[in-house]
């Protein structure tokens, strides 16, 4: 088991392109860390530098206390998982798991013991003598995982391992990998562009943009307390509603913010967690509200006209228009939409009867209101 540390890790290509300007990140012993970000954010480059597949052009990469910048992939004792998950039809499950050890001329008794351990871990003991053709899809995936974990590497690296699978198998395998990683306790770095994968699998999630770390935190913290507008809008589906607002007033007990024609007053704990707004009276800000913060219990109310209803089974998404422009995170800052109105999405109880054209009063959980600086995109919290 191992700790991975990146200190000002850099990747600059010969043509001058700076894929990773300087990354500081630590993956703790036994942790499952997910690197997530949009296409081109540098996440695969980081993974390839860790694996030894890309030269590091600056900074330090440490495995435990050893600097490994100049080590080859094999010297790092890291396993890239799921490069290939082909199973061999004439081999039994045991042979499919063991054959890579045969290649390394591992002692037969050791091989047998390791296969038995891995099979136990993967709940494959009962099918060890079967051929892959006699297994279910999920069992086949577990045999493929067995091929990787039987090596007992210091660390697993996974680069979008589920992207080749169909939707159903992807969900199933996602759960299998999470369960297995927790049982094995092997330090794991997992790269994906899919924020659902990131949020459901990682102990912590590192969000990257243009090679820079936007935030690294637990899924819950990322979701509930994003450090900036980019993370707020990247994490969550449907994404956070972010609208231009203004701090109208603030006193010892409360803060009042306007969003279009509506006013929201934050009191008590809700005002305390955004106390940084107190020094911003009269200034415009970006107000962020997750769809579900508009659909449950709340202390404030917002009146909307329903434009669209989407029934998803587990939730009801209600789209309505607010007369304030939307705010987006863009490279280097924040952009305010030129359109004076924006669409706000609320997630409601699916049993609720709502139709297009209805006038609806939504309750707002003021403890879940976020505020962002319009110049920097950074979250405004306790002042």
């Amino acid at each position, binding site marked *: 088991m191992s700790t991975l540390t990146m200190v000002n890790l850099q990747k600059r290509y010969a043509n001058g392109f700076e894929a990773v300007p300087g990354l500081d990140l630590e993956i703790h012993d036994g942790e499952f860390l997910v690197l997530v970000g949009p296409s081109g954010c540098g996440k695969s480059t980081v993974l390839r530098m860790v694996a*030894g597949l890309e030269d590091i052009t600056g900074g330090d990469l440490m495995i435990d206390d050893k600097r490994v910048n100049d080590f*080859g992939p094999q010297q790092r004792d890291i396993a890239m998982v799921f490069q290939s998950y082909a199973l*061999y*039809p*004439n081999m039994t499950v045991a042979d499919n798991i063991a054959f890579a050890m*045969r*290649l390394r001329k591992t002692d037969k008794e050791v091989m047998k013991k390791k296969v038995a351990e891995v099979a136990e871990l993967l709940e494959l003991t009962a099918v060890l003598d079967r051929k892959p053709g006699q297994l279910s899809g999920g069992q086949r995936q577990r045999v493929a995982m067995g091929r990787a974990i039987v090596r007992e590497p210091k660390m697993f690296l996974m680069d979008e391992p589920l992207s080749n699978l169909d939707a159903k198998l992807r969900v199933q395998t996602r759960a299998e990998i999470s369960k297995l990683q927790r049982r094995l306790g092997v330090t794991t770095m997992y790269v994906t562009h899919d924020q659902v994968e990131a949020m459901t699998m990682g102990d912590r999630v590192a969000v990257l943009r243009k090679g820079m770390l936007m935030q690294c935190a637990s899924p819950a913290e990322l979701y509930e307390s994003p450090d900036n507008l980019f993370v707020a809008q990247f994490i969550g589906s449907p994404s956070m509603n972010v609208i231009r607002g203004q701090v109208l007033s603030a006193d010892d007990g409360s803060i009042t913010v306007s969003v279009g024609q509506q006013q929201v007053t934050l009191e008590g704990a809700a005002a305390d967690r955004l106390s940084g707004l107190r020094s911003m009276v009269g200034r415009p800000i970006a107000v962020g509200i997750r769809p579900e913060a508009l659909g449950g219990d709340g202390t404030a109310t917002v009146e909307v006209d329903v434009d669209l209803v989407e029934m998803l089974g587990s939730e009801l998404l209600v789209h309505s228009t607010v007369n304030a422009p939307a705010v987006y995170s863009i490279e280097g800052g924040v952009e305010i939409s030129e359109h004076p109105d924006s669409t706000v999405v609320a997630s409601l109880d699916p049993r609720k009867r709502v139709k297009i054209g209805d006038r609806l009063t939504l309750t707002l959980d003021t403890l879940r209101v976020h505020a962002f600086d319009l110049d920097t995109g950074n979250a405004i919290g306790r002042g």
Partner: protein
Amino acid sequence: MRLQLAKPAEHPDIVRWPLDQALDDWTIEGLHRVVGLHRHVVRMVEVGQLSYVVKELPDHLAEREWRLLRELVEADLPTAEVVGVVTGRDDDADGLLITRHLDYSLPYRVMLSGRGLRIPYLGDRVLDALAGLLVRLHLAGFFWGDCSLSNTLFRRDADALSAYIIDVETGERHTSLSDGQRRLDLQIATENVAGDLLDLQMGGMLAEGIDPVETALAIESAYEGLWQELTGIDEFNADETFRVDKRLRRLHDLGFDAAELELVTTAGGTTLRLVPRVVEHGFHAQRLRALTGLQSGENQARRLLNDISRYGAVLEQRTGRKVNDSIAAARWLDDRFEPTIAAIPADLVAKLEPAELYHQVLEHRWFLSERAGGDVGMAETVASYVRDVLSLAPTEQVLHPTEP
């Protein structure tokens, strides 16, 4: 639904296929299942003289593989001809990738069983071909990520085999590959080939004399040897410039050419450092094509070019005049190659590619002459070859392990 075809005029039947249906439900004539475990549904379709491989996979993967295969074709790398891609089918159904089955290719399951096909030193030939393919891909900046026998097809190439990449699902194209990427690809190849061979052995389908583990492990040294020969830096004394020519000849012998040679004088000016920029494979095949118009593998070309040179010498002896290469090649085509191929019965001639047929006839002639202790004529050689070799061999034009 969107169908993109690379050369629509050459594949008119595809538009009549039930492209909107799940591949598993197709019932068209000439449809075969492809044996083995596949990540996706795969079918082979035979239409007249053409065979296609159709693979069902998610749209984004189908598009990606379509793009990568086209890039490989454009870079003149050995791969399957990509014919078309279907995306945006109804109900979120997966897309389809259509490639043309490589004529005269030998799937590893058929070839390595050692049944029906006669390929001496089979294990060595396979690993040399695979290592050669990997080197060529790496020189072009292509990381395979899943090099295996099942993702490769082989074709006879005189005394050797040529390997073709047919599945690039995990591939990535870069400007160039780092040593780490190359090493990882090689490690994956070694492991996959060991798995493929062990699987055949456990299924009782591996020819005797092939050790799965040793064969797989030998890929690494075959690869490293070739990589070093193609990219290694030579240092020599400033008065040994003949070594530049020597190095070029070695590259040509391996079928490669140097697009650029960088000669650097070291400090003091006493030594030169030679850095080759190798880009091209097919040196002999291109020369043969330029001289005769014949399509061939690299080793077949080398063999046929030697025969052309020998025939040129015979002509010079007969006429007492210098015969240039173009004239020797034209005369060789008329006097030797075409009469030999024409002498093979029409029902047997399609069993092998013409260049391979001619090479085998030359081999057979050598064998007969050795046994007779003197030269045996071409007519007698062809008759013996047809009777004792070709008529017993399987037809290799479309040879694939399918289920009806």
